[in-house]
């Protein structure tokens, strides 16, 4: 569980102090590991993949802790690393964009056989509809829909204007609803 008395300013200062760095980073992991895990999980769906990526994210954050100057929030910095790691993973595994040739329902079928998925057919199709979105649209949709982030927060992380994010989200919603309406 996240620390209730978490103090961002204090932790940022402690991360710059070599003697306090390890303890401060442990608090950061406790504070953000769940959020970062779910962010990654919604993108890759597989628990095993999300587990690997979330660990790589924090290991990379620790390795580059000297580069964190505190100009942005720790969470913003971690989200950026997590997004890079996730997109690299998807790119390497060539599952970033679902090809047109992939038959409709194939992703849902694969998901239904996953031990870490407990939804019905409709839930699986909903996840498939999201997976068929372009990466950036999928990121925006997940951050808004599942993580309930404000557009301003998403804008800071993705370095994209609020207007563009709103447009991207509404296009994503339309695409998902169109996909699902064909399955009714």
């Amino acid at each position, binding site marked *: 569980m996240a620390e209730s008395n978490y103090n961002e300013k204090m932790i940022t200062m402690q991360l710059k102090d070599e003697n306090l760095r390890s303890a401060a980073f442990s608090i950061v*992991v406790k504070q953000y590991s769940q959020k970062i895990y779910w962010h990654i999980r919604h993108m890759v769906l597989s628990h095993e993949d999300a587990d690997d990526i979330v660990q790589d994210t924090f290991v990379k954050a620790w390795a580059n802790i000297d580069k964190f100057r505190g100009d942005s929030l720790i969470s913003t910095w971690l989200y950026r690393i997590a997004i890079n790691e996730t997109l690299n993973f998807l790119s390497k595994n060539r599952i970033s964009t679902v090809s047109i040739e992939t038959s409709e329902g194939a992703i849902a079928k694969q998901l239904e056989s996953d031990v870490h*998925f407990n939804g019905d057919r409709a839930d699986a199709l909903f996840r498939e509809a999201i997976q068929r979105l372009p990466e950036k649209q999928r990121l925006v949709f997940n951050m808004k*829909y599942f993580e309930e982030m404000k557009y301003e927060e998403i804008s800071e992380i993705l370095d994209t204007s609020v207007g563009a994010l709103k447009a991207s989200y509404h296009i994503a919603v339309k695409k998902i609803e169109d996909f699902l309406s064909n399955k009714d």
Partner: protein
Amino acid sequence: MKIEDFKNKNTLNIPEDYFETLHSKIVSKSCNSKTTATPKRKRVLGWKSIGYAASIAIVVFIGGFIYNSNSGNSHEIVANEEFYDKDYIENMLNNYPIDDYTFYCYLTNTNMN
């Protein structure tokens, strides 16, 4: 189907106690490893330093070669100067009876025969 229908459904599961073990796994993986800044401080000679050293060595080698070449020429000049030394010639003229032709041959270094 509307997307709001899926909003509060938690369909993705995680293993039991996953986040408790995740924290310890991350901390042991990261805090036991060094940050990127540490090895940089330990580096004594980088590729740039080696490049500079090599450049200096080449300049010194070429400079030494040129100096030695010039030094060789200077020895020849000294020898010639000794050959045409004024005191030596005056001494020859005053103490040894030589005619003008012999003296000419001596100065021009030509064979008298």
